[in-house]
């Protein structure tokens, strides 16, 4: 008893072939979209790799690029098969390749599912990498003369301006590091000496933030220095002042940016899985409808199409039996005709 049989006459077959051809080309476009999203994601990760200690994992974008290319190839082949399906001579060429092709599509769907899962799960890894990377970035902000870290200041300033954030968790992270290089500190000045000696590690700490933390939307010119000292500025209360500098931390800002990107890519991949399944079902119907034609010379005859030749349970039983026999080929069969290998 075939699984989900449908009767086909010539018109239905032609319509199915045409509709399937269009869906295959739509899938090719989706494959191109996945490929370009993979490249875009890779570029974004590279752009911000300094914030993540150059430690970020490129597994997801690489997988996306691979999946995109595979999708293009597989769906283009499927489209070609559909295009040739109504011409019996051309279709005979493709007939032997169809079963392996459908198995390949199944495998490809499994790969897509794995990629979607990774998109959702790797967000945790991105979060942890960001936390570690930003802490180090803030520490190395002042080292504009150290090779390899010359541009850390510029990158961090650009990130804070672009993502409207300040510090790792919030602006107080800047109070815990020395972000002014010793090259620009007048060590003969008493104030400077006092400040440097006032903490165990000899760091010049102050309650100030860099200019990139400033909020341009503030009605008042930016207050960067002596942030926690209310009396240092006229009409200023640091506990209620919210518009002066950005209050959000950069880890949260960057994470929400990457997380939304990865979530939307994951949703797109799930839609691709559904589209691919529809493609596979359509192709199975088309090929079975063409194969079961009683009179191949007469295109007008009716035929049956189905998804599975036997029912679901029987198909699985057959598959399991096949797998078992694959395992048994090297064993000696008692009383059989096969030659035993000693």
């Amino acid at each position, binding site marked *: 008893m075939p699984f989900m049989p449908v009767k086909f006459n010539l018109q239905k077959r032609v319509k199915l072939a045409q509709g399937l051809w269009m869906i295959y080309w739509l899938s090719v476009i989706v494959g191109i979209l996945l490929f370009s999203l993979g490249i875009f994601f890779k570029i974004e990760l590279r752009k911000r790799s300094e914030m993540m200690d150059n430690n970020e994992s490129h597994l997801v974008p690489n997988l996306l690029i691979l999946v995109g290319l595979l999708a293009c190839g597989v769906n283009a082949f499927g489209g070609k098969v559909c295009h040739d399906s109504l011409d019996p001579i051309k279709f005979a060429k493709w007939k032997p390749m169809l079963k392996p092709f459908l198995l390949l599509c199944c495998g490809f769907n499994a790969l897509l599912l794995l990629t979607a899962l990774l998109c959702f799960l790797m967000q945790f890894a991105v979060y942890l990498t960001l936390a570690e990377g930003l802490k180090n970035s803030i520490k190395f902000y002042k080292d504009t*003369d150290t090779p390899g870290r010359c541009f850390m200041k510029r990158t961090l300033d*650009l990130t804070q301006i672009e993502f409207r954030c300040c510090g790792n968790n919030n602006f107080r992270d800047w109070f815990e590091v020395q972000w002014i290089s010793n090259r620009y500190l*007048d060590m003969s000045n008493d104030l400077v000496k006092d400040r440097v000696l006032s903490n165990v590690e000899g760091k010049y700490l102050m309650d100030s933030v860099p200019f990139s933390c400033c909020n341009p939307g503030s*009605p008042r010119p*930016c207050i960067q220095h002596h942030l926690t000292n209310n009396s240092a500025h006229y009409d200023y209360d640091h506990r209620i002042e919210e518009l002066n500098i950005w209050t959000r931390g950069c880890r949260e800002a960057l994470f929400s940016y990457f997380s939304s990107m990865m979530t939307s890519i994951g949703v797109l991949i799930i839609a691709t899985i559904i589209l691919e399944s529809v493609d596979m079902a359509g192709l199975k119907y088309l090929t079975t409808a063409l194969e079961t034609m009683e009179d191949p010379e007469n295109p007008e005859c009716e035929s049956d199409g189905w998804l599975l030749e036997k029912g679901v349970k029987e198909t699985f039983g057959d598959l399991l039996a096949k797998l078992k026999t694959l395992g048994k080929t090297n064993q000696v069969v008692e009383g059989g005709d096969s030659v035993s290998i000693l």
Partner: protein
Amino acid sequence: MAVLRLKFTKNERDKLAQVLWILNWISVLTGILLFSLGLFLKVEINKRGELMAERDIQYVPNMLIAVGLIACAINFLGGKICYDCVDTNKFLRWKLIMLPYIICTFFFTFCVLVGALMCYSMRGELEESLNLGLTEAIRFYKDTDTPGRCFLKRTVDMLQMEFHCCGNNGYKDWFQIQWISNRYLDMSQKEVVDRLRSNVEGKYLMSGVPFSCCNLNSPRPCIQQHVTNNSAHFNYEHQTEALNLWMRGCREALLEYYTHIMQSIGLTVLLTWLFEVMDACLSVLTGVRYLQTSLENVLRQGDLNSESDGWLLENSFMETARTNLNIIKCLGKGNQIDTANNGDPNINVPSTSKAHYGPDNVPLKEIPEAS
């Protein structure tokens, strides 16, 4: 003797009509391109509208938008005409509009050229507008509590950060105005009062700049206050320090940006104009004229599927000019009584279309032409 006479079978007529149809649709696409370029320029100008005074520059994007829309309409009509030309019944509908359409296309390509040239002429007015606008914007930077100017501070800060510029001509523009509002100045302090009294207009002036002037590429944390005082900072000399603040003025930066956009748009419009001229002159006019004459001849012969002749002009240039002059003379004579033909002005008018008398397959008699 007709000018450039060609024979057309029905298939060739159909193909000619189809090729013209495709060309017209490509022209519609270029019209849409012109329209979107005009829209883009309008949006860019309006985005920084707060920083520009005297909006006389709006005529350029408006012209581009209008020209783009007209291009779409004209070419769409042309496409429809060509599409209908394949069917002789529908062709009759369009017969009268063909010539005015061709004239309109010529006039319209001239408009496109004017649009392209205007793009290049906008620069002078734009510079003047930016100069005035930026001076005002810097002056009103501190007025974040005045309705209508609340967001000027934010706009100027974002501008300086995005375009990497400071002030109108340079950062010293900020030294000449008060950019900190009196709301945030402690009037009870002696220093503040002294500074206010130190100049005629009672402005709080200082050698400091807003944070948005800070240069990202500087290896040292930004020095915003006491910019010209070397002793206020360690290891600092403001005459040689080039990386601390943005050195370029915002007027220059914005002008360069807009000039770049306008040059690209101007170039694209010129290329579109060249394409339109080629399209209009060579293909549409010639093709449409051939189609028109060949279909007219088909109608004269009465057999839709036959071959027919198509030409640019029915008689040679000289004869056509002579007959047209005569038509104009006769128009002038309309009110006079012409006694030569018993007062009937129609007898002397040469007809260019031959009337169809009697049954088919009868060869037509030549009507003697009076000249």
